[in-house]
């Protein structure tokens, strides 16, 4: 396993009280595997993703659980070790607006080369720039672009350069936090193709955070569905979208229009996501769940496991 998250709990201190954004999530990703974390706003999916390279804001604390990358528990590392061993090196990150992570005042080659030199992967500036050029080529940007400033690139090139910067140190895991939300489907499709190619070329593991379950299903090996800080269900992508176990997953699928499926009006899930400062008791989905019983209000739902490795957290799992 490249990544093994176990019982992770992350709490934010906020003005109006503490908030558990991630509450007891376990998840693992193997080498060369693509796992997508699907959820709506406030599900904790981004917090989960950014906790892996420990890039959470200052008011967030990992209260419990472990995050092992290649056998290293990053929850126990100090800032300096995280910087030297983890960030960029073991885990590359692509943010929501990838292009915005480029420093507008510096040439893109210098920015990538700097990381290579800081991590000792290149000893001279020339070598670092050559490697930076290699990284650009991997993402389909001409290597001459090393000497361009970000404003001289097109929007699509900027996204690719940001991805190049994330993989330049040849990390084992790429965490992509909704990298294509701001993009149109045609561009999104091409960026996803690029991630797929990088996975093959570099034997890279990918953790994609998205709110689009159809996108996750098309691209990933496995899907983890999150709701209100907890894992609702996790398993092979195909199985989850064909026969979800958790009523929330079912609801999400029914709420999503599908151009090549049946032409029917999407069904909204009634109610709205809970306030995590004051989450519902028992199963957090129960106020919106059509199958909820009194049991769901009172107790945390049990884990339902299937032989294929699928698991769901529900008292009343759906059958196919």
């Amino acid at each position: 396993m490249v990544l093994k998250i176990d019982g992770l709990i992350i709490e934010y201190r906020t003005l109006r009280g503490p908030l558990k954004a991630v509450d007891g999530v376990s998840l693992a990703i193997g080498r060369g595997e693509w796992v997508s974390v699907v959820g709506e706003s406030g599900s904790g999916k981004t917090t989960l993703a950014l906790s892996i390279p420990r890039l959470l804001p200052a008011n967030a604390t990992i209260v419990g659980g472990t995050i092992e990358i290649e056998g290293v528990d990053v929850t126990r590392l100090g800032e300096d070790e995280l910087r030297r061993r983890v960030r960029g090196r073991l885990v590359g990150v692509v943010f929501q607006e990838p292009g915005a992570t480029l420093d507008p005042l510096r040439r893109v080659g210098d920015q990538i080369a700097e990381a290579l030199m800081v991590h000792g992967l290149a000893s001279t500036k020339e070598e670092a720039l050559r490697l930076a050029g290699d990284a650009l080529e991997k993402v389909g940007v001409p290597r001459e672009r090393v000497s361009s400033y970000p404003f001289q690139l097109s929007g699509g090139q900027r996204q690719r350069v940001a991805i190049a910067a994330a993989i330049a140190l040849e990390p084992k895991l790429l965490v992509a936090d909704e990298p294509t939300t701001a993009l149109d489907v045609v561009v999104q499709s091409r960026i996803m193709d690029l991630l797929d190619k990088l996975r093959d070329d570099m034997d890279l593991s990918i953790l994609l955070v998205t709110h689009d379950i159809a996108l996750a299903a098309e691209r990933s090996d496995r899907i983890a569905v999150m709701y209100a800080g907890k894992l609702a269900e996790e398993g092979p992508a195909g199985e989850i979208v064909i026969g979800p176990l958790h009523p929330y997953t079912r609801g999400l699928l029914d709420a999503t229009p599908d151009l090549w499926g049946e032409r029917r009006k999407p069904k909204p899930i009634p109610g709205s996501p809970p306030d995590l400062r004051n989450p519902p008791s028992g199963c957090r989905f129960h106020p919106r769940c059509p199958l909820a019983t009194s049991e769901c209000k009172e107790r945390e739902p049990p884990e339902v496991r299937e032989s294929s490795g699928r698991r769901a957290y529900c008292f009343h799992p759906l059958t196919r």
Partner: protein
Amino acid sequence: MGSLARYIALRAALIVPSVLILYTIVFVVLRVIPGDPVLAVLGTKSVPPEELERIRERLGLDKPLYQQYIEYLMGVLRLDFGESMVYTGRPVWNDIADRFPATLELAVFGFLASVVLGLASGVAAVKGRGPIRALANFYAVTGYTLFIPWIGLILIYVFAVNPILPFRLPVGGRISPEVGLREVTGLYIVDSIITGNIPALIDVLAHLVLPSVTLGIVLGSAYARLVRSHLREVLASEIVAGYRARGIPEILLLRHALRNTMVPIVTYMGLQFAILLGGAVLTETTFSWPGLGTLLLERIELRDYTAIQGVVIFFAFMIGLVSLVVDVIYALLDPRIRY
């Protein structure tokens, strides 16, 4: 014409209306509102009417206002700021030219002090620890409310009256009377260097310390506040998140962040230089610095309106010039700018 040259020319042209507006305001305030300045100056003194008429004629005050407005403007363009109303026959420009180097020297050193102090405390307010951070923050918020003469006098007390250092720092003037210096440019630092006069250089620098620090302390807080808020913003931006995700060490990260912080701050420097000139007026009075500020105060007491007008308009031109320079620096600093 190169695009930068064209840009500079355009910016310079844009400063013209701005300076004209200030000229007009000052003209209205000092020439129109007082009614008859000559009477205002001579006040209660009994002067024969024909003598009054003679003075008016000499100063051009007998002409219609619009003509005075235009003639004075034309004069200013030839560096002719008219004649003092008090010291007969003495051109105002002579006084300005005489006093300006002192003000420039003070402004430049005060500016340097404020930038150094402002940058350091701005960074400390964001990245510092414990009491240093708290102090830097407090300075950033309230530093500019230090009244310049007050902080100047406190420094005088601490470093000259009851010195905490083993020596006393000079508290008045630009140079000790016993130190000889041949004036070339009027900028004493420059003069002492080009004449190779080391003792004079040391003396001149010693005289500059307290006035520059006074200006620096008060005006540095504006930079501190700007650096603090922009640096915080940059540190919270995607750019820094990207650097951090690549495992770039904090110290490098801070350097890149500071560079991004400086871009908006440079634009502010032009405005800040204007405030600095205003502060210099108060500083000069406190330290008996023979610059334009003390000139202004002397002539206010004498009600020498032409001199007041000359000094104020001169300041307006200086500020226009500085804002031009700042704009050009800004354009050169940011690769995204196309002239």
